C-alpha cells in the first residue's frame, strides 16, 4: 500500500469516526448509545482483549535465555560488571526493566548514522526519545487528571497532579489554566506523526496501523483541548454521566454538548482498538526475553520446557569410520 493511501486512509478513518459521533448524537439523538453502550462495550473489549493478549504471550514458553547484553557481564571478581545493562540476577533484570519501562533506556541509545563522502558518523539523536517520553507521560498524567470525573470527592493525588500540571499559571486568552501535558501531548504526537511523513525511510516502513492511532490520539487531544479551553461544555453533566457509568447506574444528563460525545467516541475507539494493535507493546514490553532475563546461563541453567532428545553423530560412529586413520596418526582409540 502506498504511503499516500496509508496516510489518507487513516486520516479519513478518524474523520469518519468524528462524523459518526456527530450525526449519531446531533441528528439521530443516540445519546445513550454513544454515552453509555459504546463506552461500556469498548472498555469491556479493552479489558478482556488485553488480558487475552497477555495470557496468550505468557502461555508461550521461553525456551532459551537470550538477553541482549549491553555492558560487561559478571566475570572475574576484579572486573567491574555493568549490573543494569548486563544483569546476572533476577533483581538486576528487574532494575533493567524499570529503566526500560519508565525511562525508555534503549531508545535513549539512539543515534543517527550519517555518511559524508566515505566517512560514517553517528550523531546523538535524542528527539525520538524525548518525544516518546513526553507522549507517554503526558498521556498518563492526563488519564490521572480524568479520574476527577469518576471519583467524588476528588482525591488529593488528582488535585496535586492538576496543580503541578498547571504550574506555569498560564491563561490562554482568558481560558482556564493551561495544562503543560496538553501542550506536550499534542506537540509530541504531532512530532511522531510528522517524522513518519517527512523521513523517507520511516515513510517507507509505516503502515496504516501506524498513522491511524496517531490521528486518533491527536483527535482525542484536540477535542479534549477544545472542550477545556474554547468551547465550554457542561462539566457538571459530564461528571454525572461518568459517575453513573462507574456506579453501573448510567443516565444521560441534558446539555452536555456534541463535542464531548465525539471525544468520548474517539476514546472508546482507542480502547476497543488497543488490544488488536501494536499499542499492546504497553503489555508486551514486560515479557520481552531479551530484556527481562538475567544473563547467567553459564552459572544457572535455564530449562526449556520442550527440550527433546536429538540425533547425534556418536563417538563410536566417528571412530568406526576413522579408526585406521586415527591409529596411523597415533591417536588413541577405544577399540583396537
Amino acid at each position, binding site marked *: *500500500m502506498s504511503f499516500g493511501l496509508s496516510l489518507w486512509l487513516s486520516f479519513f478513518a478518524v474523520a469518519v469516526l468524528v462524523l459518526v459521533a456527530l450525526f449519531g448524537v446531533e441528528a439521530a439523538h443516540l445519546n445513550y448509545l454513544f454515552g453509555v453502550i459504546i463506552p461500556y462495550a469498548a472498555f469491556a473489549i479493552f479489558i478482556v482483549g488485553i488480558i487475552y493478549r497477555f495470557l496468550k504471550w505468557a502461555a508461550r514458553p521461553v525456551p532459551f535465555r537470550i538477553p541482549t547484553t549491553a555492558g560487561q557481564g559478571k566475570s572475574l571478581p576484579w572486573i*567491574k560488571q555493568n549490573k543494569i545493562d548486563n544483569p546476572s540476577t533476577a533483581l538486576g533484570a528487574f532494575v533493567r526493566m524499570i529503566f526500560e519501562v519508565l525511562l525508555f533506556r534503549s531508545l535513549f541509545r539512539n543515534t543517527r548514522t550519517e*555518511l559524508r563522502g566515505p566517512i560514517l558518523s553517528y550523531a546523538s539523536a535524542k528527539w525520538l526519545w524525548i518525544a516518546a517520553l513526553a507522549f507517554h507521560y503526558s498521556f498518563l498524567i492526563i488519564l490521572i487528571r480524568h479520574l476527577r470525573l469518576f471519583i467524588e470527592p476528588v482525591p488529593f493525588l488528582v488535585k496535586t497532579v492538576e496543580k503541578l500540571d498547571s504550574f506555569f499559571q498560564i491563561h490562554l486568552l482568558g481560558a482556564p489554566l493551561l495544562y503543560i501535558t496538553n501542550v506536550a501531548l499534542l506537540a509530541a504526537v504531532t512530532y511522531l506523526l510528522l517524522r513518519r511523513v517527512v523521513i523517507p525511510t520511516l515513510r517507507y516502513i509505516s503502515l496504516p496501523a501506524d498513522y491511524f492511532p496517531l490521528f486518533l490520539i491527536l483527535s482525542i487531544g484536540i477535542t479534549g483541548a477544545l472542550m477545556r479551553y474554547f468551547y465550554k461544555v457542561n462539566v457538571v453533566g459530564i461528571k454525572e454521566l461518568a459517575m453513573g457509568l462507574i456506579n453501573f447506574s448510567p443516565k444521560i444528563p441534558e446539555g452536555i454538548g456534541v463535542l464531548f460525545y465525539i471525544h468520548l467516541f474517539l476514546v472508546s475507539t482507542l480502547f476497543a482498538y488497543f488490544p*488488536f494493535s501494536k499499542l499492546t507493546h504497553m503489555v*508486551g*514490553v514486560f515479557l520481552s526475553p531479551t530484556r527481562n532475563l538475567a544473563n547467567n546461563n553459564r552459572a544457572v*541453567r535455564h530449562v526449556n520446557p520442550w527440550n527433546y532428545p536429538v*540425533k547425534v553423530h556418536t563417538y563410536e560412529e566417528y571412530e568406526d569410520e*576413522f579408526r585406521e586413520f586415527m591409529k596411523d*596418526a597415533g591417536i588413541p582409540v577405544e577399540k583396537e
Partner: protein
Amino acid sequence: MAVQKPEELSKIDYKPPKTSWMDTPAELRKDMFCWGNKEKSLKTVGFPNARAWSVADEDWKLPENWKEIFLEGLKERLSKYRSFQLFMDICVRCGACADKCHFFIGGGDPKNMPVLRAELLRSIYRNYFTTSGKMLGKVAGARELTYNVLKELWYYAYQCTECRRCSLFCPYGIDTAEVTILVRELLNLLGLNIEWIAGPVANCWRTGNHMGLLPHTLRDTVDSFQADLETITGVKVDYSFNRKGAEILFVNPSGEFFDPVGNITFMGYMLLFHEIGLDVTLSTYVSEGGNFGFFTSNEMAKRLHSKVYAEAKRLKVKWIIGGECGHMWRVWHQYHNTWYGPVDFLKEPVSPITGTKFENAKSNKIVHICEFTADLIKHGKIKLDPSRNDNYKVTLHDSCNVSRGMGMLEEPRDIIKSVCNNFYEMPPNTIRENTFCCGSGSGLNASENMELRMRGGLPRANAVNYVRDKFGVNTLANICQIDRAALQALMNYWAPDVVVRGVHELVGNALVLKGEKERTTDLRGEPLPGKEAK
C-alpha cells in the same frame, strides 16, 4: 573479486524506491547472495526436501505443498517461542533500528532495515494468523505468501548476520537475530539453505569440524605448528589429541587449523598451555567449537554441539576451555547448558594455576580462553614482554556475539593491554555493545557474496580507518575465527595496511617461555622490533 572499487561502493543511496515495499519485488542480485546448498549436504544430516537447486533459477524445485509446510512451521514456532510471538506482535515501527544495521548502512537497501526485514515475515504472519490481517489484508499490513515472497524471505534471511545490534536499540528488545534464526529454520524445512552453511554442517556432523579435516590431517597440522614454534622459540611444546584423564578439554573453532591467521592464534594457545604446564587435551571428534548448525536451526545446533559434552564425558575431563570464536560463545553462553544440562558429570571450573574459581561458569563448566588468560595475567603467573609487539599499533574489534550475547568486553582488553604497549580504541559507537559486525557472520563469509560482505563491513572498516589515520593503527585484534577469516579481506578492501590478528597471537608473541632461545621473529616469522635484517 568482482566488486566495484571502494570509492564507488561507498556512494550509497539511502532513499527508498517510490513504490511501497510490498509492491517492490525483491531482485535477487548476484554478489549479494550465497550459492544454494548441495543435495548431499542436507542429506548427510537427514534434512527434509534435500535436492540440488540454484538461486538464479526461476524454479527452486520446491515440494508441492511448500506453502503448507512453511505456514505449519510458522504456527509451530509461534507457539514454542514467546520471543517470536511477541516480536511478531509488538513492533511499532518507530524506526530506531533502521540505521543501526551494517547491511543497511553499507548498502542502502530498505529491506535491510531490521524493522523491514522482520516485516517481511510479519506481513505473512498477519495474513494467516491474525483476524485483522485476514479481514483487512493490505490495509492491516498483511500479504500473501507467494513464490516471490518466499524468495524474498530467503534473500534477506541470508543478508542478516544475526549480530543483534538492532536489538540493542529497540525499545522492546525485538531481536532480529531471533527472527532470522527462525526464518532460516522455516526455509530449511523446504530444503532452502546455502552451501556455505550446509556444507560445513555436514562436515561437522561427520568429521567433527566444519572444514572436514580428518584425524590424521589434524595431527599433521598441529605437528607443523609444533615444528614452527620450535623454530621460532627453540622450545618443543607438547600437545595431545583424545587423551583420556586430562584435566581440561580444549575446544576451538576449526578455522584455526585451516586459516593462516587462525593458525597463529592457535599457536598462541599452544605456547600458553605449554608454558603453564596445563593438563589439557584436544579432541579430533570435537575439533570444532563453532556451530554452523546454529545458522540452520536450533535443533541442528543442538545436534552438533551435544558432541562437546559427550566427548568431555568420554575423556573424563574435569572441565572445558573454549577458544576465540564469536557465535560459538553465544551458543555456549546462552544455549548449550539449556540443551544438554545439567552438566553434573564435570567439575566446577577452577584454574589449576591460580586457584581462581570461575563462578560465572559453575553450571555449564566451560570457560572462555580470554577469561582464563586474563586471570593468569592478573595473578602474574606468566612472564610477558609486550615490547615484542611494539611494531603493532592495536585496536580491538569486539565480536557481536561475545558483546551482545554474553558481555565479555574487558577480558580481551585486559589481555591486550598486558601484551601490547600500543592500544587504541575505535570510536565508542562502534565498539563494545555497540560493536559493528564484520559483515560476514552467521555463515555468510563465502566468496560469491563478496559485495554483500564488503558493504556489510563498511561501518567496521570505517571505524578502523579512523584509528588508522589518527593513531597509525596497523593491527586489528579480535577474538573470533570468522572475524579472522573475514576481516582481512575487508581490511584489504577498505583499510589497506591493517593486519588482522587473534588476541592469543599477540599473547604468543609476548609470552616469555622458560628455556626459550632469543627470539628474532614473531609467530608469523616476521622480525621482532629491533631484529630486522640490517
